[in-house]
């Protein structure tokens, strides 16, 4: 990639006009619920960005997140945002290897202490002192403890880094935890998803470059702009849910008509993510559009949530219990009512017509 000159020149070199860059910034700003003027500010900031140093550390991961962000949209404008940052360490992308690569890492950390952005994908193995996942002879845990405190901001990319993800799924043999379980003294931006949506990540970086701060986060450390609504809230199949029209199997008439996949286990109602409106593959579609329910991959512990094909509110056993309790309650009610009738009847039968003599002792 051409790393010389400013961003706009780079973009022009790649055939992207200033106008489409401005459009991108405006879209990004509106996606993040920023005021319209923020689009221009963002464009200006990005255009003359001092190219903050970014270090990307891969831990217990599958490289799916890297694939998502760097490849699936390439050559998209999101990918080019990386040209406004100095991605100094990214194992998958960097040319350097071995001792050379490690040297770069330590040099960048030392030179940019307190200024660089640390991106992490993958969970942190804590079992056996972190020995389950090592790079250059050092455990991820060790590395995170050393580098983390020196970063200006930490972004946990993907469900593994954000919540522990699949490595943390039962029985969690490696003792995997989320980045935020280790780094407790500074905010960690979580961008969950398996993988996360590329624009969410570039949006967070653009926000950091433009405003020098992190976007507003929710209680799980996710940017509110992208994780403020559920998939269900924005799903194009929502009208069918509201009408009670559900596909019962993946090949029935309802499925063909595009009815709601709730009964087939869609986790859309409890999953906060931007898939339904930002979409995937350059805005092509998202899983529900392809006929499969949401599996809730951006929610904590999604792998252990009881099966992808089990409907959310149809747990069979508790319902049986509730029905039993209702029957028992009704039986007690009937019994009490019969007893009360008898009691009142007895009082009535014992009625003695009151006379004036009954008014005084």
């Amino acid at each position: 990639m051409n790393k010389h000159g400013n961003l706009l020149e780079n973009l022009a070199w790649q055939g992207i006009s200033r106008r489409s860059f401005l459009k991108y910034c405006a879209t990004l700003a509106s996606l993040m619920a920023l005021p319209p003027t923020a689009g221009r500010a963002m464009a200006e900031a990005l255009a003359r960005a001092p190219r903050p140093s970014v270090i990307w550390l891969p831990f217990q991961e599958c490289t799916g997140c890297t694939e998502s962000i760097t490849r699936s949209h390439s050559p998209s404008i999101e990918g080019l945002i990386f040209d406004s940052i100095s991605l100094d360490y990214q194992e998958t992308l960097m040319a350097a290897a071995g001792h050379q690569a490690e040297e770069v890492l330590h040099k960048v950390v030392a030179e940019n202490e307190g200024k660089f952005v640390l991106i992490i994908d993958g969970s942190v193995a804590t079992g056996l002192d972190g020995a389950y996942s090592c790079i250059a002879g050092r455990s991820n845990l060790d590395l995170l403890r050393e580098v983390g405190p020196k970063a200006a901001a930490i972004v946990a990319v993907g469900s593994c880094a954000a919540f522990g993800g699949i490595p943390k799924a039962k029985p969690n043999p490696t003792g995997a935890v989320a980045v935020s379980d280790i780094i407790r003294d500074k905010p960690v931006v979580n961008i969950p998803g398996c993988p996360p949506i590329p624009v969410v990540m570039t949006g967070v970086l653009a926000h950091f470059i433009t405003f020098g701060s992190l976007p507003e986060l929710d209680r799980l450390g996710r940017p509110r702009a992208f994780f403020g609504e559920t998939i269900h809230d924005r799903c194009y199949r929502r009208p069918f849910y509201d009408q009670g029209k559900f596909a019962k199997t993946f090949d029935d008439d309802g499925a063909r008509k595009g009815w709601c996949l709730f009964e087939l286990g869609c986790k859309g109602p409890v999953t906060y993510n931007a898939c339904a409106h930002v979409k995937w593959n350059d805005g092509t579609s998202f899983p529900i559009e392809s006929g499969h329910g949401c599996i809730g991959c951006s929610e904590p512990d999604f792998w252990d949530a009881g099966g992808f094909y089990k409907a959310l509110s149809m747990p069979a056993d508790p319902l049986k219990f509730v029905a039993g309790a209702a029957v028992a309650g009704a039986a007690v009610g009937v019994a009490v009512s019969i007893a009360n009738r008898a009691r009142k009847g007895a009082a009535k039968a014992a009625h003695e017509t009151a006379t004036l003599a009954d008014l005084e002792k």
Partner: protein
Amino acid sequence: MSASLEKGVRVLKEVIDAPIASYFSSCVHCGLCAEACLFYTETGDPKYTPIHKLEPLRRVYEQEYTLLGRVAKWLHLSKPITDAELAEWQELVYNSCTLCGRCSLVCPVGNDIVYMVRKLREGMAISGHAPNGVIEATRRTVELGSPMGVKLHAVKAQMKHVEAETGIPIPLDVEGAEYMVQLSSMEIINFPEYLSAVARIMKQAGKTWTLCSTGFEATNAGIQIGVSDLARVIVSRIVEGAERLKVKCVISPECGHAYTAIRWEGPNLIGRPFTFQVKHILEVLDEFRAQGLIKTEGMETDRLSFHDPCQITRRGGVIQQQRNLMQMVAANFVEMPDAGKYNWCCGGGGGVSANEEADELRLSAFKRKKAQLEAVKPDRLVTACAVCRTTLEEGLEHYQMDLPVLGLTELIAEHLVESGDGDRKGA
């Protein structure tokens, strides 16, 4: 005498019905009923909170008719009702409640609190915890025919007096008359102008009417003391009289609880529908007005206000009629704040005025009415209930307020356009 705690508790068990069970289960303890009760607002004493007055009834309900309450009773964890307790509650159930029903009106969950007070009185009376004044009024009604001891010969004397005054014959026991007119003993003794007014109005309206020698008294102390068996004896006199005379309609006089007794409790007490209608005199007068049967002339020009009797307006639903009638004859009619169904009680209903023990409390509760009157400063006050009228007069005198009180029926009668055959002059 045979009143006993045991009998009282049995009666309470008997009177608790589905409405009461649902009322006690739905009470949210918000306390809004306190602010609706003049005995609370004028004393500030929380024991006068209406729902609290029902505590003995609530305890019987809980201990006898709820699962947990029965378990607790079985384990001796609950406190049984005692005679001492009922004695303590006598003041709350009789002295500080006029059965005015304002608490029922404001209850946000729709509990008819006054219905429950009425039922609690059943048990209170049978356990010997009714006030002497109310017991004596009941005794006189049952034994002599009227709470004030008025007998038929007193009514006949009154009739003669009115006949002489108006020149209109007063019919007695006329079979087939359209209306059977009731009187309250207060009217027979203190306010003879009522009978005279009715005679003149009926004459102008051209309606047939009659008094009944066996059922002239409309008041029902059995309702006030809360003994249905006695209330039934009293109301049966009217029902039998009306059915014997085959009248179409019985007119309840200017008396609040008499209307409740015959109109609402009556058919329930005797256990069947009446063969005749029951109307309050205000309803009848307004019908006559609407049909153009009565014509009035001249207007009162001083400032008049109207005191709505609770049993007629709030509990009885007669709200607009008296206003239509006031407009007929009063040029300067002013409404008190809270007039209509939210009107404040005079403090004397529900047996309170017959209860000497309650005199002091009643007079302090009257401060509420005083404040209402002071807000509009009328020259005269009109009402349609003999008990309200007496209570108002007593309260006004106590607080040295110079404000004459009169009945609406007589006010209307004073303005009738009368033909020359009577010797009365118009107002």
